[in-house]
């Protein structure tokens, strides 16, 4: 039973809980047992409170026994990336500067998941302040890819991706600033969706880059992603950038997509993301799997065409000016005055020294690199040349998308140019690390929704297929992803994740 539980989709767990086939305590205990047995070798979690999880699960079971009205997610366990603020539960954002901090409040999405009756298993590891693509920038530990524990699980939501892929959580919340949900989902064989900017509240997400950050689901199936997304989406008066409009019917879109009929759907393949003349730096295997996925969409009735988005070539430099600029300001509050780490306050040093020492010791090298980059880009005399220019590029990228939507319903590309690389391979080469975000950055900069769905293996490792849609049309991402997932699972005879650890090649 327990092996089944830890490989089930969350939707199946939800059904089993509702029918009484399983109790929340049973499900929760199965995951806690798996964490106890395996997380030492995976390193997905920064904080697990088994007692609190079992207590919460017990309360849901008791409520269900009393016949109380419960939502569909009640009793289903989940994990939160440690960037999500949780009341009374340690929250570090992967940084030493917040070690030991127990927040006095819940993020809106944490409160919504609590209200929905989900059970928090723990907080997952991440690159410090979500800055990174491998989770190697965590100040605490290395997280390993369950497909091959010598490899990275992606980042920055690598703890969430590893936990879900390894069966240490049925699903998890990640956050995505430049690809931090989609890329780790891609390299661990999961579904990961970055919602339309403004459609999931940012209140209580420790900010990296405010104009880009979005939280979203990381799951084993497209339907699970839609379910979890619906649970956290919707207007929040605490977030001024939150969009006050109805959430599209995502689960319905996923169910409809799984029927496999895409006739009438116009799909644009982005030339600049791995296409002709733009394939440098892409694994051949990745491009093959993506081409196969495109062919599969076509076989289901989609009209496929090439679409050129010239400004996408500028996404990387624009992103690495805008995100660090905002980060340099967002991270200014970590000064040792009100919370978290304080260094050097022994009465012999003045305020500036204590602040400087706290930040010197509290932040890791990548965080410092970006603070310095952003501080420079915003400086008087450089602002227009850097931040100002980057904002113009952002407008051009948005315009490329807008133009594309005249001709196609969705745009597709690889999620990441490569499969998971070996731990340590890129730590000394930040630019190589940044290149992992090449395909995910345009949707981030334009604020449009994008999903990564598995499309097979290359060298025995998962490859992700990205589907981008116009703002607020997240349902299109789910429809296309569900169609692809269903067709591939049918051809393969099982879900991609079922092959984890076997290094089998995908049938194509």
């Amino acid at each position, binding site marked *: 039973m327990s092996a089944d539980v830890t490989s089930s989709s969350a939707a199946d767990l939800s059904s089993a809980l509702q029918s009484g086939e399983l109790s929340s305590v049973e499900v929760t205990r199965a995951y806690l047992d798996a964490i106890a047995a395996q997380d030492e070798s995976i390193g997905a979690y920064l904080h697990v409170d088994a007692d609190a999880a079992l207590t919460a699960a017990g309360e849901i079971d008791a409520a269900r026994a009393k016949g109380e009205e419960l939502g569909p997610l009640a009793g289903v366990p989940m994990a939160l990336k440690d960037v999500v603020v949780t009341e009374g539960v340690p929250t570090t954002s992967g940084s030493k500067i917040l070690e030991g901090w127990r927040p006095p*409040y819940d993020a809106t999405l944490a409160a919504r998941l609590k209200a929905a009756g989900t059970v928090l298993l723990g907080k997952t590891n991440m690159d410090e302040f979500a800055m990174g693509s491998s989770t190697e920038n965590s100040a605490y530990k290395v997280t390993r890819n369950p497909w091959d524990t010598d490899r990275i699980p992606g980042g920055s939501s690598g703890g969430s991706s590893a936990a879900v892929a390894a069966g240490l959580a049925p699903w998890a919340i990640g956050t995505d600033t430049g690809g931090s949900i989609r890329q780790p989902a891609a390299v661990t064989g999961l579904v990961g969706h970055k919602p339309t900017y403004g459609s999931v509240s940012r209140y209580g997400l420790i900010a990296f880059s*405010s104009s880009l950050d979005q939280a979203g689901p990381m799951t084993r199936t497209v339907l699970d992603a839609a379910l979890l997304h619906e649970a956290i989406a919707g207007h929040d008066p*605490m*977030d001024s950038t939150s969009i006050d409009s109805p959430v599209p019917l995502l689960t319905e879109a996923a169910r409809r997509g799984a029927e496999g009929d895409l006739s009438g759907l116009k799909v644009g393949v982005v030339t600049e993301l791995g296409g002709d003349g733009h394939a440098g730096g892409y694994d051949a295997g990745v491009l093959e799997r993506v081409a196969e996925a495109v062919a599969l969409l076509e076989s289901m009735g989609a009209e496929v065409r090439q679409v050129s988005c010239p400004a996408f070539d500028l996404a990387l430099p624009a992103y690495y000016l805008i995100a660090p600029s*905002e980060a340099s300001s967002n991270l200014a509050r970590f000064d040792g005055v009100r919370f978290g780490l304080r260094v050097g306050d022994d009465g012999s040093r003045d305020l500036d020294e204590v602040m400087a020492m706290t930040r010197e010791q509290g932040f890791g090298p990548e965080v410092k690199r970006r603070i310095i980059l952003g501080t420079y880009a*915003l400086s*008087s005399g450089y602002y227009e040349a850097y931040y100002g220019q980057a904002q113009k590029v952002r407008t051009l990228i948005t315009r490329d998308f807008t133009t594309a939507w005249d001709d196609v319903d969705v745009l597709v590309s690889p999620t990441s140019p490569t499969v998971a690389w070996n731990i340590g391979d890129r730590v000394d080469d930040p630019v190589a690390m940044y290149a992992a975000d090449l395909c995910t950055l345009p949707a981030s900069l334009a604020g449009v929704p994008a999903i990564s769905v598995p499309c097979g293996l290359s060298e025995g490792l998962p490859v992700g297929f990205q589907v981008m849609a116009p703002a607020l049309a997240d349902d299109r991402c789910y429809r296309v992803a569900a169609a692809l997932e269903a067709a591939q699972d049918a051809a393969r005879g099982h879900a991609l994740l079922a092959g984890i650890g076997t290094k089998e090649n995908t049938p194509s």
Partner: protein
Amino acid sequence: MSDTLVDFDEVLTRYEPVIGLETHVELGTASKMFCGCSTTFGAEPNTQTCPVCLGLPGSLPVVNADAIESTIRIGLALGCRIASWSRFARKNYFYPDIPKGFQTSQYDEPLCTAGHLDVELDGETYRVEIERVHIEEDTGKNLHVGGATGRIHGADHSLVDYNRAGIPLVEIVTRPIPGTGAKAPEVARAYVTELREILLALGVSEVRMEQGNLRSDVNTSLAPIGSLDWGTRTETKNVNSLRSVERSVRYEMRRQAALLDAGERIVQETRHFHEDTGSTSDGRSKEEATDYRYFPEPDLVPLAPDEEWIETLRVALPELPAARRIRLREEWGLSDAEMAWIVNAGAVGLVSDTVAAGATPADARKWWLGELARRANDSGVELIELPVTPKQVAELAGLVAAGTVNDQLARQALDGVLAGEGNPGAVVESRGLAVMGDSDELVAAVDAAIEGNPDVADKVRAGKVQAIGALVGAVMKTTRGKADAATVKRMLEERLVSS
């Protein structure tokens, strides 16, 4: 290191001053700028805080609509153009009193621009151009514990109170004001006075200068007379009373003239004003080097107030002080000069409120510009800062009018009110200040005065009526001033002068 100063009148023989003011006003909204915390003054430290105004990780701001409305109303009252599209910006710098490591403010896209305020001074009108009015958040307050001065140097440790952090703050910035000559210090003061009256009329702030509701940064520069260019300015920070505004300009003019006379350059810098000496000193060089790295606040959406709403606010503006002064002058039957005196003393509101509380315009004016002005001057505070309310002044005037106290006793009653002993009636009671009526005690005192001064009494009896003054004086002396002189005189006449 005291500064060399040039005599003020001499400054004007060689230099032309240009002044400018940046005034910060704390709005009187019920809640803070970006969260729901209370703004009540004087609460226990850090009791009016939440994750947002403490800048806790993950928290986000939400704009207080009332603060936007107040800012727009201020802009309208100053004749500004209200932007149809305006943004917040982050002003980045490190200091413990700013919880987020940046202040959420406005930079190149303020809510209100291009207004003006006409300031009247000694029958002349000076037009002060308003560059911008924008909205931002206040900082917390640092408290330095230990050490002698309460300043950071020598302190054992520092505490921060974030109750004030996030209170809405409006900044009103003038364009440079040339052409005021010798009147520059007074124009600066008159501008802040008039601005304060407008803010009071709008009801957007309590404008209590002693509580820091209104704080001005005063820019001053000098240029040689006839020069086409303006001089380099200094910015005197946090000048917190009307009197200090005037003094800081005067001081800077005298100091800068000495430097220019000596062939030195004026450094563009921040200076601090010292209330005790009336002088300024240079600020920390660290502050001057700050690059605030302004950029648009990504956590807030742009403000786009719609035209119709702005018009609704414009139509609903209250009567503004200039119009009100004309109306009041007519109602009170004062001359231009008499009204100007009240205006210059910053007492229009006080006099008006005192009249509203029942005093005659003449009495209200007499109290505020006479006894109370003298006391404010003696203790070096503004009239408004005296711990007495218009209602209390009206009550005092009423006690005099009713004959309960005479002028001298009324002044003693005022002592008690200012000392916090309560309302005038209560002070008269507790201090036993009421004038004696036709009481036995007074009859005895009158009789004793006649008996004790037989010569004077005889003179009066003989028809030398003016000698009665000596007897009145004697009665006042024995009653320690509590008798009403007119009553005493009448009683003496009844006894000594045959009708």
